[in-house]
């Protein structure tokens, strides 16, 4: 759905329009659920996180503003944030015995394959493309899977220090590049 219609829906939801709330859900739930499942690897927890996201939006605890960027990206940010919080809490308390519903898809989504790109996405990808492939990979693993520095290091067989500096350097370059975009 186009950014403009999502924006209109979010504005209507802020005025407690129930039909708009339902439409917003229909238009965006699959995206948010996909994001949450990839990070949490559990569909039940992902459902909780997605529910939380919509309740925050409905209750106005999360309020969309035009400077928040693209509406869908803003909603994904809420979902990712909540999912990562949950993930950290769980790994901290070692509460992860039930992996029965784990999702097997281990592929890293490739942002360059997205056909229809928004203006923001074009600017971002132009900058992201300039990064070293190692930097890109570390950042994508973190973004889509919610891995910590340690987890990325372990999966790539690279020292943690290297992963940390790749991510930091990558982020700084993105910021500087977007400034000139």
């Amino acid at each position, binding site marked *: 759905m186009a950014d403009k219609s999502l924006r209109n829906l979010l504005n209507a939801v802020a005025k407690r329009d*129930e039909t708009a*709330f*339902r439409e917003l*859900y229909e238009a965006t*739930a*699959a*995206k948010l*659920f*996909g*994001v949450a*499942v*990839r990070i949490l690897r559990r*569909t039940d927890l*992902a*459902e909780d996180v*997605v*529910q939380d996201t*919509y*309740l925050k939006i*409905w*209750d106005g605890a999360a309020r969309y503003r035009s*400077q*928040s*960027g*693209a509406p*869908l*990206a*803003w909603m*994904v*940010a809420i979902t*990712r*944030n909540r999912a990562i*919080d949950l993930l*950290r809490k769980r*790994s*901290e308390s070692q509460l992860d015995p039930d992996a029965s519903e784990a999702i097997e898809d281990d592929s890293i*989504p*490739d*942002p360059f394959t*997205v056909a229809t*790109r928004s203006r*923001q*996405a074009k600017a*971002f990808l132009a900058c992201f493309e300039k990064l070293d492939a190692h930097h890109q990979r570390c*950042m*994508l693993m*973190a*973004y*889509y899977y*919610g*891995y*910590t*520095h340690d987890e990325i290091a372990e999966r790539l067989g690279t020292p943690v220090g290297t992963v940390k500096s790749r*991510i*930091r350097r990558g*982020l*700084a370059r*993105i*910021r500087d590049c*977007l400034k000139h975009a």
Partner: protein
Amino acid sequence: MPRRDRDIFAAEYVLGTLPPAERERAATLLEEDQAFAHAVSEWERRLGPLAEAAPPLQPPKELWRRIEVASGLARGARASAPSDPGHQIALLKQRVAAWRLAAVGAAAAAAVAFVLWLGNAGAPLAPPTSGARYVAMLRGTEGQTAFLVTVEPEMERLVIRAMVPGPPPSKSYELWLMRKDGSTPATLGLVPAGEFMTMPVPGRLKDWDLSSGAQLAISLEPRGGAPEGRSMGKIVFAGELVRQTP
């Protein structure tokens, strides 16, 4: 923290790579430091385009119903004008029905189990000298135990044990009785604050047949309760009434 470091700290928070302790520090900073909060939302915007490549996955159908219930919406809620009392009652019934579907199914079973446990814990229960007693375990939509309510019609009182904190400052909890025959839900009054409370029961409750299955529900209302005794709020807790005495 120098501005540049703080900005990268914000970026790592958004990306999600911070270890738990540092993530918590960032969350605190987010609440207290406006400049940091601004840096975080800037990074959410910058990295936002990555969301476009995230593969969608259709959530189960029940998820919308869960959200609908948790947000206090119900199907057909927009069917008639909100000021229509019939509409309000229908809405309340729908909400309880939707709640029942969402409430992990086990609320009634748990209430029965609890009653059995009560019976086993102490001396054999003497036959009631003052009429039947009923008990309901009220649970939230996530299945969490919230209130244990004992109805003692002869004593004209309800004994309430709260296991959750009170309502938000501008709100009140209101207790409703909903009979199986589908008649109008009746308010039993506002739930008093505190852990262990009693509430007077309207005398007419004595005449009501509770043994045929009724439900207690607590709604979240504007402070002071539902205007004109009709629920405007959402059902937050509910449970079946079970006869406690032989």
